[in-house]
C-alpha cells in the first residue's frame, strides 16, 4: 500500500509538473497532458456502450497491434532462451555462431524490411518477424550469460548424479539462469513496443504504430502524444503482468529473508 502510494505520488507529481511546464511554454510540439487526455478519449473511448465505449479504432488498430506484439515477443522469448541456453552451455556453438549472431544483432531492423518483404508475407507475418528480430537479442544474450554462469559446484553435482540432459537443462541451467533471463525478458518487452512501431512503418494499414506515425506526419501532436502515452500505459501494464509472473517464478530466491538490501537498512 505504502509503496503503491509512493510510486503513484511521484508519477502524479511529474504529470502535474509537465502540465504546468507545457502550459507555460505553449509549444505546439508539446501539448498539455490534459489536451493529450482529451485526444486519447476522442480516439479510443468515445465508442458505443455496447463496445464498452471503445471506438472502432481500438478494434482496428490497437488490438491487432497488441496481438502482434505479444506474439512476436513470445516467439522471441522461446527462440532467445533456447538459443541462449544452447550457446551458453556449448563453447563450440558459441565459437561457430557467435560472430554471425553479433553481426546480425547490429543490423538495424528497418534495413531488413526489404529482405523480410521477400521472405515473408507482408502484414502480420512480416511485422511479427521484425519484432522477433529486434527483441530477440536481449533475451538471447542474457540467457547465454545466465547459462554460462551456472555455479561450478552445481555443475559438478549434476554431473556426478548423472542428471539427464533434459533435466539438467530444465532443472538446473534454466533456474540458475532465470533471474538473468527475466532481465532480458523485461528489456525485450518494452523493446517490442518500440519494434511494433518500427514494424508498422511498412506494409500496413492498421496498428497503433502506424496511427502514431500518421499523426506525427500530420503534425497532429496531441494525437501523436496520445499514442505515446498509450504505448507507455501498455508497457506499464505488460510489465506489471510479467513482474508478477517473475515474482512467482523466482519465489525461491532468498532475498526477502536474508538480503539486507545492499545499502538500505532492513526495516
Amino acid at each position: 500500500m505504502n509503496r503503491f502510494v509512493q510510486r503513484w505520488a511521484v508519477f502524479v507529481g511529474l504529470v502535474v509538473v509537465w502540465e504546468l511546464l507545457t502550459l507555460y511554454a505553449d509549444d505546439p510540439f508539446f501539448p498539455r497532458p490534459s489536451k493529450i487526455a482529451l485526444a486519447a478519449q476522442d480516439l479510443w473511448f468515445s465508442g458505443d456502450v455496447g463496445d464498452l465505449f471503445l471506438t472502432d479504432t481500438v478494434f482496428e488498430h490497437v488490438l491487432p497491434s497488441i496481438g502482434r506484439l505479444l506474439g512476436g515477443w513470445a516467439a522471441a522469448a522461446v527462440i532467445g532462451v533456447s538459443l541462449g541456453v544452447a550457446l551458453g552451455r556449448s563453447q563450440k556453438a558459441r565459437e561457430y555462431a557467435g560472430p554471425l549472431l553479433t553481426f546480425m544483432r547490429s543490423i538495424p531492423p528497418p534495413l531488413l524490411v526489404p529482405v523480410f518483404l521477400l521472405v515473408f508475407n507482408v502484414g502480420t507475418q512480416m511485422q511479427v518477424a521484425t519484432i522477433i528480430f529486434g527483441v530477440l537479442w536481449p533475451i538471447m544474450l542474457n540467457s547465454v550469460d545466465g547459462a554460462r554462469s551456472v555455479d561450478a559446484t552445481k555443475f559438478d553435482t549434476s554431473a556426478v548424479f548423472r542428471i539427464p540432459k533434459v533435466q539438467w537443462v530444465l532443472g538446473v541451467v534454466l533456474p540458475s539462469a532465470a533471474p538473468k533471463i527475466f532481465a532480458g525478458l523485461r528489456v525485450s518487452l518494452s523493446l517490442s513496443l518500440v519494434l511494433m512501431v518500427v514494424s508498422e512503418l511498412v506494409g500496413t494499414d492498421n496498428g497503433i504504430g502506424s496511427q502514431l506515425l500518421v499523426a506525427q506526419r500530420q503534425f497532429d501532436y496531441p494525437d501523436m502524444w496520445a499514442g505515446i502515452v498509450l504505448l507507455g500505459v501498455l508497457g506499464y501494464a505488460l510489465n506489471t503482468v510479467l513482474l508478477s509472473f517473475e515474482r512467482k517464478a523466482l519465489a525461491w530466491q532468498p532475498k526477502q529473508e536474508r538480503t539486507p538490501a545492499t545499502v538500505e537498512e532492513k526495516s
Partner: protein
Amino acid sequence: GLLGGAEEKPAETASAGKLEKAKINLGLLPILDVASVHVAIKKGYFKEEGLEVEVKIVQGGAAAIPAVIKGDLDITFGNWVSFITAETNGAAKGVDGLKLINDGYQAKPEMFLILAKSDSAIKSPKDLEGKTIAINTFKNIAELTAKATLEANDVNPDNVTFKEFPFPDMEAAVQNGTVDAAFMVEPFISRAQRASGQITVLDAASGPTDGIPIAGYGTTGKFVKENPNTVAAFQRAMAKGQRDAADRPTVEPLLVEYAKVDKETASLVHFGEFPTTLDATRLQRVADLMRTYKLLENEFDVKTMLVGASGS
C-alpha cells in the same frame, strides 16, 4: 564536423552586402524532384546571388519541417500537403507560421502511375475496386491524387485499401502479390516497367489531378521577416535552376551523382514539370483536394502562406 560527416568548408563571405544571411542551410530529399537545386548549384546561380547553400539531406516533411521550425534548416524542400498540414495544425505558430517561397515540382502525365503485375487481372482503373494499393505515405499527395483519379474513373476510393510501402519496395511487393497494385514515382516506375514488365493501370496525375503541384520550398515567417533579401535572392537563383532543370542533358548526369541512380535508368525516367513561378491559384488546388478528402477540416486559403507569388 566529423560527427555530421560533412565537409568543413570555410564560409565564403558573399560580396553582396545587403544579404542578411549569406549561408543557407537547405533541406533536401534525395529524390528527382530537387534536381533543379543541384542544377542551380552546379551552374553557380546561388553564387551569383552571393548565396552559399549547404545541402542537408532529410528524409521527409515530418523531419524537415520541425528542423525548419527549430532553425537548423533555413529553407527546406517539402511536399505541399505537409506544409499545409503543418501550418493548419499550428506547428509553426511560434515562428510566425510557414511560408512557401518557391514552387518546386509539378505533376506531368506518366509520372504518378499506379502499376500492376503484367499478368494481373487488373487491366483498367475499374479493376482496382476492392483491391490493395501500395502508397508511400498515408494522407499525403499520393493518396489524394489516387483517390481523386479513382473517383474520376467511377471507383469508390473507400473500397480500396491503401498500404504503406517505401517506393523502393513497391516493385517487389507487386511482384510477389503482397499488394495488387502500387502507386509509384520515377525512377521506380521505369525500373518496374523495364525489369518486371509491370503495366500501367491508372495515371494518378490525369483528369482532376492533371498538372497538380507536388512540392516546393518553404521556410518560416520569422526567417522571411528577418531575411527578406536573402529570400529574394534564393527565389531568383532557384527560378533559374528550375528553368534549366527542364533540360534533360543537364539533369541526367546530376541524377547519377546525387540520387545514386544508375545511368541507364536516368536516361529513361519521366520528369515532372519544374515551374518557375509560384502561383497561388495552382497551389490552391492542393488545398481544395485536401479539403475534399478530409485532410483539412475547413476551407484554407494558401495565399496566406505565399511569399512573392504571382497570379494572385
